[in-house]
């Protein structure tokens, strides 16, 4: 059962990935219609991630605008071997959101926010814009396959903006262990999601 589900979803994913890559190529050539389409395909993820990292819709909106303008400016520098179009755009989004959170919030404030944050992965009830219910469940199922320390390291880094050194300090764990947890966890997640 899970394999059938994954197979079907994988095919749809592949088509989406090909389409986004093609759109980004057109954007690099200055095609504004292609940019509008790319915007519609990616903005919910970019904005949602910014909200998650910053926990402030007004700031998240500013970041989302900066990210989309950066996509326009730098489309010519896009390297498809870095996670595809979506990988590149989400890298820009996560980096900008985290840079903002690091600049504006002290570590103590972030600790406080992190302590109050909701559980990782997609909460139910969020508008199903990009991932349908099946895909959200798949992400959640795959997150469940991680060990608790792997999940903690990944969410502290990606959603809360801590560096691996900060994660090591906060969790009182050797640096090498934290690095290994992040890499092993991401490999396990990649294999479970079947994205590569």
């Amino acid at each position, binding site marked *: 059962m899970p394999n059938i589900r994954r197979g079907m979803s994988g095919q749809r994913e592949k088509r989406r990935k090909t389409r986004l890559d093609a759109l980004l190529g057109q954007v690099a050539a200055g095609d504004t219609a292609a940019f509008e389409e790319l*915007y519609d395909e990616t903005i*919910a993820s970019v*904005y949602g991630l910014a909200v998650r990292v910053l926990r402030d819709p007004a700031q998240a909106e500013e970041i989302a605008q900066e990210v989309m303008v950066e996509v326009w400016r730098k489309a010519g520098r896009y390297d498809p071997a870095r996670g595809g179009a979506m990988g590149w755009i*989400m*890298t820009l989004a996560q980096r900008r959101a985290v840079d903002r959170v690091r600049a504006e919030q002290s570590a103590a404030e972030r600790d406080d926010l992190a302590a109050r944050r909701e559980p990782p992965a997609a909460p139910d009830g969020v*508008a199903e814009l990009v991932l349908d219910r099946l895909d959200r469940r798949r992400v959640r199922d795959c997150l469940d396959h991680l060990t608790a320390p792997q999940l903690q390291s990944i969410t502290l880094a990606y959603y809360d903006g801590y560096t691996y050194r900060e994660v090591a300090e906060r969790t009182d764990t050797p640096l090498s262990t934290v690095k*290994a947890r*992040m890499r092993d966890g991401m*490999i396990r*997640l990649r294999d479970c999601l079947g994205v590569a």
Partner: protein
Amino acid sequence: MADDIHTLAGPYALGALTDDAEREAFEDHLAQCAFCAEEIDGLLATSAVLGRAVALPPPPDLRARVLGEIADTPQEQAAHPVRRARRLPRPATLLAAACLVVALAAGAVAVRTQQRLSQETARAQAIAAVLSAPDARTVTGRMSSGGTLTVTSSAARKSAVIAPSGLPALPSTKTYELWTMSGSGVRPAGTVQPGSAPVVTSLPAGHDRIGVTVEPAGGSPRPTTTPLAVLTL
């Protein structure tokens, strides 16, 4: 040192490196390690799914503001020519193809039998067909054991020319073996020795990577060791 920096793959994919300097050092490493670049490709696609999993409806007026801003924003030129955009055969490639044909033919005339000669000529023609294809693309990667692998591929010709250089010598019980790889399978693409001429291989649909491993002499039907390099075409 290289092993040490490679453990940063997880933090890199999660945007959790210490600073820009550490990130740039890791990206320099990626440029030299095809295997690492391949891994990062998959891990970045994975972290993107973590981002998509928290998608929210954006404020409705954001779209108009972004479109208004890009209308006045010039685009940056590509820092380096985008490999994918290279559509026309470059003169250097054509020259290389021509040289290869001449060199192979000349070598063949000197020593080979007539039958061998026609085989060599056919191979040289196959190589030239790939190198001069309108969609020919070339990628180069360093092998972790030393030596480099240069692959020119053409989707139109469904073929690739694989040219190893500077391969370290192996004991006589071992050989280098080339592979074409897809998301679902691996296919042998021939064995090579230090100093071997380029190899032509067909590229079945979906095969978009070339790998090289060390195998027992004579080659293996499936890779049995860790790849020394994996190049994405």
